[in-house]
C-alpha cells in the first residue's frame, strides 16, 4: 500500500479494532498506538516488499 494513501487514525483501524476485541480487555492507549504503528508498517512496508 502506498503510504500516501495512509490516513493516520483511520487506515487500518479495523484491524486494530479486531485485535482489541480479541484481547478481551481494555488496553492502554499508548500500547495501542504502538500496535497501530505496527499494523500500518505491515500495510506499507511489508506489502511493498511483496
Amino acid at each position, binding site marked *: 500500500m502506498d503510504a*500516501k494513501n495512509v490516513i*493516520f487514525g483511520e487506515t487500518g483501524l479495523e484491524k486494530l479494532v479486531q485485535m482489541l*476485541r480479541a484481547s478481551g480487555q481494555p488496553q492502554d492507549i499508548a500500547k495501542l498506538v504502538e500496535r497501530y504503528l505496527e499494523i500500518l508498517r505491515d500495510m506499507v512496508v511489508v506489502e511493498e516488499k511483496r
Partner: protein
Amino acid sequence: MSEKPTFTGNAEQKALAAQVFQLMSSQGQFFAADSPIKQTLANLADFIAVQRKADRAKVVQEIDAALSKNHAVFAREQREDDVIYVISRLGVYRARVEENTHMFKNRLYEPDNPLPVDDISVVVTTTRPALTTVEPVFISDYWQQQAGIEPVELGEEEQEAAVELLDTVEAVEAVEAVEAVAPAVAEPIEAAAVESVVAAAPVVVEKPVPVSTSMQNTLITLSNGVQIDLRRPVADLIGQYGPTLLAQFRAALDNDPLRRIVTFGTDAFPEGAVESFGKNDLRRIRDYLVETGEPMLDSQIIADIFYHNPRQNDYETFRFALDYRLSREKDFEFVGVDGARLWSTKGMPAIGTKRVKASEMGQLTGYLEEGFDDSTAEQSVESIRSTSTLSHVLTFFEWEYGVLPYTKALAALLPAPLLPDQRTAVLRFESPQHYSSTLAELRFPTGNRGGWLQGLEEFFHEHLVPGALITLSRTAEPHILTLTYEEQPETTDRLLILDEKKNKLAFANVSYYSAVDEDMLVNQQQYGRLRNLKSLPMSDRRKADATLEHVFETVGEPVGTRSEPRYQASLGQLYVALNVLRPVSREYLAHLLGDSDEFVLDGERWSYTPPPVEIDETEEPQDEDLYDEDEE
C-alpha cells in the same frame, strides 16, 4: 486501416519486402494496431521458397538483404542462430508509451498554469457533511509542494547527489542500492551531479529529502504536517514522536464518526464490545451515590450494585463500560484520578466553603496562571515528587476559608486530572494526629483562572492558626493524602479573626497547639493595624491593585502629613496583610508594587502615596483621628 509503408531497394527487394510485410500483417491481423508482430527469418524463407520453388538458402539471403534495406520498417533481432523481424500493423513497431497527461485527474491536480498558493486551505473546498465530523481531504503532492508542506522531489541526478551528502545509514544504503543497479552509469552521473549538489545543498540541509521512491512510499504525513517513516522501528518512532502520535491518535478516535474505539482515561476498547446500562441501572447508581453522600469508587459501585466479582473474567471490561457510560451521562461527574475512579452525581452535598464562589475563587487565584507562582522557590518540584511531601505555611485567607491555591508545588504533589476536560477531583485528607479525615475538592485551572483546593476549613479552624506550618503527604492510594502539623505546648495569643456577623476583622484570644512561622502569625502585636482592614466583598478583592492600596493604607506606617498622606511598610508585612483579603504570592505582590508609580521602594521598605483626593467643601469635616486611627 493502415497505409502500406514505402519500401526501398531495387525492384525485386521492394517486392519481396512488400510480400513479407503483407505476410506478417496477415499473421497479426487481429492484433492491436501497435502490437509487435514477430516472425523468424527461417519461417519466412521456408514459406517463400516453397511458393517460388526456389533454393531456400538463396531465398534466405534475398530476404535478409531486402529487409536489411528496409530496416526502418523491419526491426531485426538476432536471437542465437536465428533472426527475428518485428513489425506492427502500422508499419514500424514502437513500444507503447502510456500517455495520460490529458486525463482529467492530472489536469485537475497539476494544471499547466497554476495560480500561486499562499494558503493551502484555499485549495480545499469544504462541504457540510451529513455527520458533523472533519473528513480527511486528499491533497495531491503538487498542491502540497506549492504550499511548501511537502519537500520538492528531486530529479534522479539530484537525488544521487543528495544521497552523497546525507550522512545517514539510510543514505548509504540507498547509494549502495543505486550503484548495484547501475554501476556502468554511476561515474558520468556523479560527475554531472556535482554541479547540482551545490544547488541542492540548502534544500538537503534544511529538510531531509526522500532519497528513493521506496523511501517516499513509506512516509506517512500526520494531520499536523509531521512526516513519519514507517521503515523505522516502532520503538524509535515512539521515542521521537510519542506525544504527537498519542495526541493525533486520540484526536482521530474522538473524531471517528463510527466511534469504533472509545477511550476512558488511558484505556481504550471497541465501542461495540462495551456493555450498555439502562435507565434503571443509572437510577440505581445515582440513588446509591446520593445515599452514601460522597463520591464513590467505580469498583465500589460495581460491588454494591452489580455484584460483580473482580475475579470474573469480564470484570475489567465491565468496569471500563461503567466508567465510559457514566462519563457520557450528564447527571454524573467524574471526580477521580488515575488509579481511583470516583463518581459523583447531582444532589450530593457540596464540598468546601460556600462563602467564596467558584468563579470568584478562580479569578483570585488567576495570578498563578499569569506566571506569578513562586511556590517552588523553597521546595523544588523534583524534591516534592521524590519525597512525596509538601510543607506550607498557612496564610489568613487560606486558614479562614479552608482553601489552598493550586500552585506548582501543590500540583507536583497532587494527582493530575485523568480526563482532558476534567474540572474537579475529590481527595481525602487524613489526619493521623486526630484519627479523622476530611474530603476536599480540587478545582483544576481553566484558561486564565487558577485552581485551588477547598474543603479544609473545618480542620484548619479546629487545629491550626494562620502562620501554622502544615505538611501534606501522599499515601499508597492516589486520592488519599495525609495532613499533619508539628505539635507544641499550648500557646495563647491575640490573633486576627473574622467576625462573620459584623463582617469585621478583630483580634481575639486564641489558644493553639501547632508550630507557627512567627513572621506569618497574624497577631495583634505585629499586625495590630489590621483591625481597621475592611473585609471587602469578594468582587472587590478580585482587583488586586485596589485591594493592595487599601491594605497599604491600613497596615502601612503613616509617614506623611494629614494633607499629603504617605505610608511605609515592608514587603513581608504587605505579604501577610494582603493575604488576609486574598491569596497572593510574593512574586505577584512585587509585580503589583512595581507596576504602579504610587509605590516607591525606599531602601528595604516600600512607601505608598495615595493619589490626591479633591475635598468637597460642602461636605462635613471628617473625624480628625481617621489618619491616626491605627494608633493603639
